């Protein structure tokens, strides 16, 4: 058993007997495999077990946290997907001009800046100095939709930055490839107006790969959520897992990570479906 749960919960000064009693009551003195089987067989029946720390069923915690995280992720996605794609398109249409270099290098740099670094800087600028936005994503009880969004803008910004670079870069390279493609030359030399060439012939082929990338970023997003939720004290799945890891609250940790795995798989599946719907080569097979 990695780490001693009873000790982690009761603290370093607690009596060893108390720790043993707690471990026994949690079932932690049984063999590891037995514990795991017990947990997994309950999980598939919808019972995620009982938290060591909160001494309460895990499920409500996980579900609440997941809901909160999805709100935050959605705010970030709604901001970043259109802007990232647009940025990539603008960059590609102006290849090697200053605007392209700014979007590309800026996007690339934004992508590698850790969320807590940009988060701190945003908190200082918008929260502390300008005092425009709340520095913690803890809204008052019963806050309405727009109030919640207001509280989520600042936490969503670091996620936005990281994703913006990815999406813009993919969109840009997809666009450049499509613009250089022979079929685009065909379309231009048909005498189609530039606008039609872009809308009908370029965009669809260009943005197909980007769609997949957006979905695979779900995995990253969850990692980012751990950091951002901690920084902004937001009760999401990331901070739940973080708290559980620190407190060695294995039922919550396991349930949380399994939930993330499910979310990730669903997102990937959706992306695959979307990709095959948009791509006739996959949809129809290649038979003649």
């Amino acid at each position, binding site marked *: 058993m990695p780490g001693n749960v009873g000790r982690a919960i009761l603290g370093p000064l607690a009596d060893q007997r108390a720790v043993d009693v707690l471990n026994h009551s949690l079932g932690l003195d049984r063999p590891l495999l037995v514990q795991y089987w017990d947990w997994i067989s309950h999980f598939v029946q919808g019972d995620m077990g009982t938290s060591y720390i909160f001494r309460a069923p895990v499920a409500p915690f996980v579900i609440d946290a997941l809901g909160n995280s999805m709100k935050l992720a959605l705010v970030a996605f709604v901001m970043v997907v259109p802007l990232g794609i647009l940025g990539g398109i603008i960059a590609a249409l102006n290849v090697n001009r200053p605007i392209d270099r700014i979007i590309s290098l800026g996007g690339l740099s934004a992508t590698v800046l850790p969320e807590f670094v940009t988060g701190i800087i945003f908190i200082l600028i918008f929260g502390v100095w300008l005092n425009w936005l709340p520095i913690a994503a803890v809204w008052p009880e019963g806050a309405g939709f727009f109030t919640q969004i207001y509280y989520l803008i600042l936490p969503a910004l670091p996620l936005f930055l990281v994703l913006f670079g990815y999406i813009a870069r993919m969109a840009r390279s997809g666009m450049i490839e499509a613009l250089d493609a022979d079929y685009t*030359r*065909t379309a231009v030399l048909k005498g189609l107006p*530039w606008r*039609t060439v872009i809308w009908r012939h370029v965009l669809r082929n260009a943005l197909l790969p980007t769609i997949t990338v957006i979905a695979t970023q779900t995995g990253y997003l969850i990692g980012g959520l751990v950091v951002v939720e901690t920084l902004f004290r937001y009760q999401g799945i990331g901070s739940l897992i973080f708290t559980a890891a620190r407190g060695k609250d294995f039922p919550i940790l396991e349930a949380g990570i399994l939930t993330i795995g499910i979310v990730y798989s669903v997102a990937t599946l959706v992306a695959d479906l979307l990709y095959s719907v*948009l791509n*006739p080569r996959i949809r129809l097979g290649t038979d003649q």
Partner: protein
Amino acid sequence: MIDTSTGPNALELHHLSVAYRVGRRNRAVLRDLSLTIRAGEAYGLVGESGCGKSTVALSVVRYLPRNGVITAGEISLAGHDVMKLDHEALRRMRAESVSMVYQDPGKALNPSIRIGRQLTEIFELRGISGQAAVDRAISMLNRVRISDPVRVMQRYPHQLSGGMQQRVGIAMALANDPTMLILDEPTTGLDATVEAEVLDLIAKLRQELSASILFISHNLAVVSRMCDRVGVLYAGMLVEEGPTEEVFNNPRHPYTVALLRCLPRGGQRKDQIRLDTIPGFLPSPGAQISGCPFADRCALADSRCHNELPLLHDLGGRLSRCHYHERAQDLPRTTPGHIAAAHVAAAPQPVLRIEGLNKTYAAHGHALRAVNDVSLDLMPGQTLGLVGESGSGKTTFARLLLGLVPADGGGTMELDGKTLASKLESRSAEQVKAMQIVFQNPDSALNRSHSIRHIMGRALRTLAGLRGAAQQKRLVELVRSVRLTERHLSVKPRQLSGGLKQRVAIARAFAGDPRIVVCDEPTSALDVSVQAAILNLLADLQTKERVSYIFISHDLAVVRYLSDQIAVLYLGRIMEIGPSERVFSGPHHPYTEALLSAVPKLDETEPSRVRLDGEIPSAINPPSGCVFHTRCPRKIGAICEEQEPPLFESEPGHKIRCHIPFEELARLQRKTDHINEVTA
């Protein structure tokens, strides 16, 4: 066919110069190019790779790559100055008066839009929409002889074969009824029989339409078939121009003379004549050219040629950019034409004997029989030519021989009377070094990270077991035997031209004194002038080393030049096999007949008559009976659909897989047998 009536010329280029910006320098691709295409005329532009052919096409429609700039000159299309057009006028010109057909139809069509939509949008530009546009699109597809246009309209490009894609490409180009049609290598990359169909189609359409044609090709024979006049491009300059027949029969520029001599034709064979070659290399793009661009490679050149750029001399209806155009045909050969007759003594035993070889792949859950019951013998010192279109299994067959892919059980292979295991690992070291290969593309075949010395040294070490001084000694010998020098040893492949790389690849194949070398399209990635040198080299090495070749090529003239035996493959089966001259002179299998007449020839007197319809069937689901019956122009009836004919020995050593008796084939083909006036 030339419309000599008044009115503006379809296309005029005046002193056109185009450069590509690479790094910080402008590299000239077209230099002072002037040409005129009259209304209704078909003008062919020929030249080797890198001479700027495609740049001409892209300049006319003003679609040069981002780094391309027109540095001087004028382009006038039907009297309008193309360079002065603003965006909208340029778009309208492209929409209304000029169209293009591209080399790679699969890439030129948008992969995610249905064929129908890609056609109707052209009509929409002219205000025809809805059902009217659909009807027009259908009639356009009918016009390019697509038999089921309604269904094709619903398809995506990847669902069509290459030939069909190109028909669609032509339909798209003709949809706006252009006055100028540019065809940029429209049949390059298509199979011979498909190419013949597409060329026929273009020729027919020419009679129906009024468009002038600019036909760009590296293939002299194709241009000679399709065009009224021809321009020969060299290093971005027009070196010769004139009526096609005159230029090809009576060339007046040494480059044209040399180019034509490089082509094996009229049934030339390796034991009769050596091909002529062009020494040296094309000037690189952007090179400073002070005199004649061809002077460095021209045996007629003197100091005037090196210093003074020749004018385009008007020779009465034709032009030549040569100071000594009247003597152009006196150009001495670079290689002596006659060769010592090294007659191969009849060997009693074949070096390679193959019996009932099969190979089945699993493709998407279906069995794909790539090679089907192939049996043949290869004599020492002889060449077996393998001929066939895509899907015929010729490359798979080569890989089976070499052990790169294991054959299905059942067949046998024998090398020098000893069983040859199907897997490479199970062969003896002696057998491994006895069989080597020269690949099609030397860029792929030579490791670009290694020096030539390393590449050859490694082969000598593993195949010949040589190390140290012995290895170095043999290395130098080997390099010299392919006419390279020691200077070439220290460089990496990228520093060599395509022809030199192929020599390295050949030298490597000969490192272990092989008994058999498989040549898999060894010259098809090379220009004709380089091809000739490689073919000569292969022929010389064969005489010297007594090696046998299995020579795979889609180019029948090349195969004929080098081969003693020919095997014609179709869907993995041998349709015909026999002595080279017997196979070429006939009577031959109807498929061989179709292949032979599909190839455009320079010295063709009348268009060939045998044409195939339809697509090459998929090897996953081959036709019943005789696999060729779906396309056979000489099909005799139900028996062809029901029974696979045996490979029947019609005359000694000559076998044909056909239900038609040999004598009947002979009678049928006598009429069409115009293509074998062997001139040698």
